[in-house]
């Protein structure tokens, strides 16, 4: 049943322009950043370079790809619940012998499937210089994994926000606000008691940084997966309160 729901979501999304616009727009922006980083790096003398080309690329290219994902995931999630609640098509699954858990996981997997090509855009750009520059494949793989894990979290936040409102625009704003709060919350650390790193730990970009630097840490993987799980559970709760399934 999960596969049936996910398959329909992916099919429906691919015949709408949104994922293609996000892919195309994302590629244009990332390729511009890629060219700028490579150009700046090439313009420096060897002793002026403070970081390797791989690190420059992962921090800038993958870092900006995360921001694009932060916008893209709520946009793709908005039609999955919020749009269906508004159009009345949600009544179809509400009256079908489908569990809420199957429904949430099906929609989430579809969202992850649609988000994954966006996570691969930075690697696509790196392929241009794969043969001519000495890139660290391990660091690039770690950065891609980090980006994808952050995408998992963004998708679950997007899906949760989508379950909150019958107005897709409002659900996008809610998701974006949540993600923005978890992005800047790390800056509150300086305001809190010195040594207390809770705010820093809550911030997703702090965890993504370690992946971009080439370090795959279990605590960072646990952070992204547990946040994704929490927001999926909240989506489940939200729909269970509304429907008998």
């Amino acid at each position, binding site marked *: 049943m999960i596969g*049936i729901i996910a398959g329909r979501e992916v099919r429906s999304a691919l015949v709408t322009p949104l994922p293609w616009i996000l892919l195309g727009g994302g590629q244009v922006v990332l390729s511009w950043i890629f060219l700028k980083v490579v150009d700046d790096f090439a313009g420096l003398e060897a002793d002026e370079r403070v970081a390797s080309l791989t690190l420059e690329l992962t921090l800038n290219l993958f870092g900006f790809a995360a921001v694009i994902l932060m916008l893209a995931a709520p946009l793709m999630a908005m039609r999955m619940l919020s749009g269906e609640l508004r159009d009345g098509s949600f*009544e*179809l699954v509400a*009256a*079908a012998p489908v569990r809420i858990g199957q429904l949430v996981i099906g929609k989430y997997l579809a969202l992850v499937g649609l988000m994954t090509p966006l996570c691969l855009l930075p690697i696509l750009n790196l392929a241009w210089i794969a043969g001519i520059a000495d890139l660290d494949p391990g660091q690039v793989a770690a950065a891609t994994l980090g980006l994808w894990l952050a995408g998992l979290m963004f998708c679950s936040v997007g899906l949760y926000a989508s379950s909150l409102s019958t107005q897709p625009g409002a659900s996008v704003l809610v998701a974006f606000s949540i993600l923005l709060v978890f992005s800047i919350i790390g800056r509150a650390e300086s305001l809190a008691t010195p040594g207390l790193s809770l705010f820093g730990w809550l911030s997703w970009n702090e965890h993504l940084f370690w992946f971009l630097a080439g370090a795959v840490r279990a605590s960072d993987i646990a952070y992204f997966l547990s946040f994704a799980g929490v927001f999926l559970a909240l989506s489940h709760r939200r729909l269970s309160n509304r429907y008998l*399934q």
Partner: protein
Amino acid sequence: MEILARAIDLSRRFGRYPALSGLDFELRQGEVLGLLGPNGAGKTTCLRLLSGGLHPSRGKIEILGIDLSRRPVAAKRHLGYLPERPPLYPELRVDEYLRHCARLHRVPRRGVKEAVAEAKRRCGLDGVGRQLIAKLSKGFRQRLGIAQAILHRPRLLILDEPTEGLDPVQTREVRALIRELSKDSGIILSSHVLPEVQAVCDRVLVLHHGRLLRSEHLSAAPRAGLCRVRVAGAVDPGQMARLPCVEAAIALGEGRYRMILTEGATSGDLARQIVGAGLELHELGPERPDLERVFFDLIGAGDPA
């Protein structure tokens, strides 16, 4: 006959507003039950509760003896539901959509093709299988909504205003379809079109302000001994009442009369006697229960005429 659906003290509040209060009813195999009421009477709320799309605030729903609150997935296997707005995905083609619905309703993979073809045939969708749903007319969308509700052959069919948006020919076809479907299943439908309810339902629940006002059996057979006639010109009601087979005649105006016949008399006797009395008979028909009169009396809206 087997009880397909049972509602016990069914209530639903939206905040402080009681949309439905203490509704009790049963639906049996082969029965078509109509929910009748003005806008805001609680018809759609009742159907959404029955379909499992809404939690009841109080009360219980059983579908084939299965508690919908406790075992919703098991209960919903026997359900087909057409909401007020057909639940369609405009970006899909008709065949894709119906195949998805079949899989969603757990039709075995091998039976999907046959189920889709059968639902399309019954709802007159044979020629539009490849069309995008977004490009269908309102009538075809409504038919597609009915097709998704029936394609898994549910024992209980819930239809919210099934003929909404259909032209007169399609309306007649859908009414015939409902009668045909009722042979194998029980059907609950809502409508605010009185002749429609009268045409297809065996029983009607009249709702008003979320409360059940009356449960009325609509017998297709005319009430014995009651006829309605129309004769030419102005005729004295006394003359009509003096006919041997007539016990009483009530003038309805413009040459129309409601006739109460004596025991054993038939409409044939009445026709012969009217003609024998030198009157010109224009119409003679059975007197059916007047749902419109019952409805307006119950909701307190007075006589529409």
